[in-house]
């Protein structure tokens, strides 16, 4: 039996025998041990794909009863409750029974997940890119490795620590000093109006998320900025442009597409972030935040917060419901990723990107 890792099979009969590597890849002169190694590599290559398929299938299977029970209500409903778990009375819907009064409307979580991650992204991208440009221009070359270690440390910090800091230090400071100033924006943007609360809520969580993804975006951006050829920047400097103008005219266009990719990476992280958001969100169920400072919740945070009580539901519907919002999160993440890739492709369409051309 033969199998081909490449499309080199044709090479044996009619194809290009002048390419010895193609022949070797086609398996013409492999020993038994080589073949075994190839099987192992092939298997290892398939593992991630299989895992993704398996995980998705399991999640969907687990979620189906909740989808049947709630129908579109899962996406449009504002109320998410497991119902009364202490009486035996059941509510039956679409042929599926759940504890009395159970409703699985996930719209507030979907909203919270999308909005908080978007605010985080809007704040994080300019800060990260600006910081990287300032650092690479200003920090002496011999200190640069220190900067990257620092970024990696920040990126690797446990999210519980961010959560703690957010709830104990950052949130109260924001509520005292920043939010009252922001309320002046209320005239133009109504959701900035109203009570600023104590620093537990949408904006605090979004800003903490921003801080968490800044190192991710910055680290990628930094690597990109370092690939911009010096010669290209010197063209601008030699013309009398300032470093700022050089960054705008040369550096940023060179790295724009990469920054978009970095932002999508950061967005994915913000979408799925659980612990820090759970600690800072104020954990609002069954409704939308009154303004940008108010408590809210996200899908990921809700799953963690409600898992314990879900396990006590004898009908199993509570777990099905959490699985269902998990599937929604999975889909949101996949869609944003695909959308991001599409944008990247759109932006680069027809443009010969200079990066790596060694101009």
């Amino acid at each position, binding site marked *: 039996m033969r199998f081909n890792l490449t499309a080199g099979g044709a090479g044996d009969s009619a194809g290009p025998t002048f390419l010895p590597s193609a022949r070797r890849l086609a398996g013409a002169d492999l020993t038994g041990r080589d073949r075994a190694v190839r099987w192992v590599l092939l298997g290892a290559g398939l593992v991630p794909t299989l895992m993704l398929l398996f995980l998705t299938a399991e999640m969907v299977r687990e979620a189906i009863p909740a989808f049947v029970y709630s129908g579109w209500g899962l996406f449009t409903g504002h109320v998410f409750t497991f119902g009364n778990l202490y009486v035996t009375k059941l509510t039956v819907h679409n042929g599926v029974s759940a504890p009395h009064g159970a409703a699985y409307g996930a719209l507030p979580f979907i909203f919270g997940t999308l909005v908080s991650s978007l605010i985080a992204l809007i704040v994080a991208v300019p800060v990260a890119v600006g910081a990287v440009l300032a650092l690479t221009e200003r920090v002496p070359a011999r200190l640069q490795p220190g900067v990257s270690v620092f970024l990696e440390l920040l990126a690797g910090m446990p999210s519980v620590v961010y959560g703690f800091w957010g709830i104990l230090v950052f949130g109260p400071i924001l509520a005292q000093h920043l939010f009252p100033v922001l309320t002046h924006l209320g005239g133009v943007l109504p959701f900035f109006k109203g009570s600023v609360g104590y620093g537990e809520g949408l904006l605090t969580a979004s800003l903490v998320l921003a801080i968490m993804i800044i190192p991710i975006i910055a680290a990628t951006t930094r690597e990109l900025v370092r690939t911009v050829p010096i*010669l290209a920047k*010197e*063209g601008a400097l030699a*013309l*009398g*442009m300032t470093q700022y103008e050089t960054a705008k005219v040369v550096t940023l266009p060179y790295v724009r597409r990469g920054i978009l990719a970095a932002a999508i990476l950061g967005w994915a992280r913000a979408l799925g972030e659980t612990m820090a958001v759970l600690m800072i969100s104020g954990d609002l169920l069954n409704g939308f935040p009154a303004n940008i400072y108010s408590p809210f919740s996200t899908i990921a945070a809700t799953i963690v917060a409600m898992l314990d009580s879900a396990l006590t539901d004898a009908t199993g519907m509570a777990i099905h419901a959490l699985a269902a919002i998990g599937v929604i999160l999975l889909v949101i993440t996949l869609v944003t990723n695909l959308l991001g890739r599409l944008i990247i492709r759109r932006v680069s369409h027809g443009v010969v990107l*200079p990066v790596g051309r060694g*101009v």
Partner: protein
Amino acid sequence: MLSSGRHLGVADVVGSNLDWTVQLDEVRVGFGPKQILKGISANLPKGKVTAIIGPTGCGKTTLLRSINRLHDRRPGFNLKGRILLDGESIYAGSTDVRELRRRVGMLFQRPNPFPQSIRENISLGARIHGLWSRADVSTKTEYLLREVGLWDAVHDRLSSTPFSLSGGQQQLLCMARVLAVEPNVLLLDEPTSSLDPHSTTRIEELIAGLKEKMTVIFVTHNLQQAARCADEILFLEQGEVVEQAPVKQFFDDPADPRSRAYISGWAV
């Protein structure tokens, strides 16, 4: 003109003689402990083309880049002596580096257009320096593109990327970009070393035409090109001036035996 006895004292330079655009007064450049230029003195005549020649690594690029302060941010860069532009020291504290770089344009060894549209490649510098208004852009861009001989090739794609142009076309675009900011001095560092013969000819024609308006200093490793294009030759070896002479004299009857050896070595 002899190589010896040409070192200028400060007194010669101050109260400057405006027949010279660029004056090099005992210029020493080092990177850290490494000394590259070891006391270069020369006067580069106004409105003429001076070719800087010499073996690889003798410091031609280093010298050229010193004239518009492109080394400034290199770690370890140090410069002693003085470089005067129209009689004023360009490394003095009062120098406006941006304005200096506008007055001293530079074309590099390889083309380096901006990752912007062809139109913006030409207009951005002039706009930033306040030389062109928004309304000027289309007419002046066209004028410059015609001047460098690119108009026919690019007039229908001014909004697209320059990276799809050939290397020679990209270099001509960079030339137009430099001319847009109206420099008095043009520095060219082996501008044709990576170009096709046609673009090389075009650049050489431009050099010949430009010296009416500006002082051209260009580095080349091609002696035939130096003989074709230059009025004046500045021959360096190991960071020192061997000889400066008018082009005919340099090639027909060089004063220094090292020049003679270099020329004959090249002819073989």
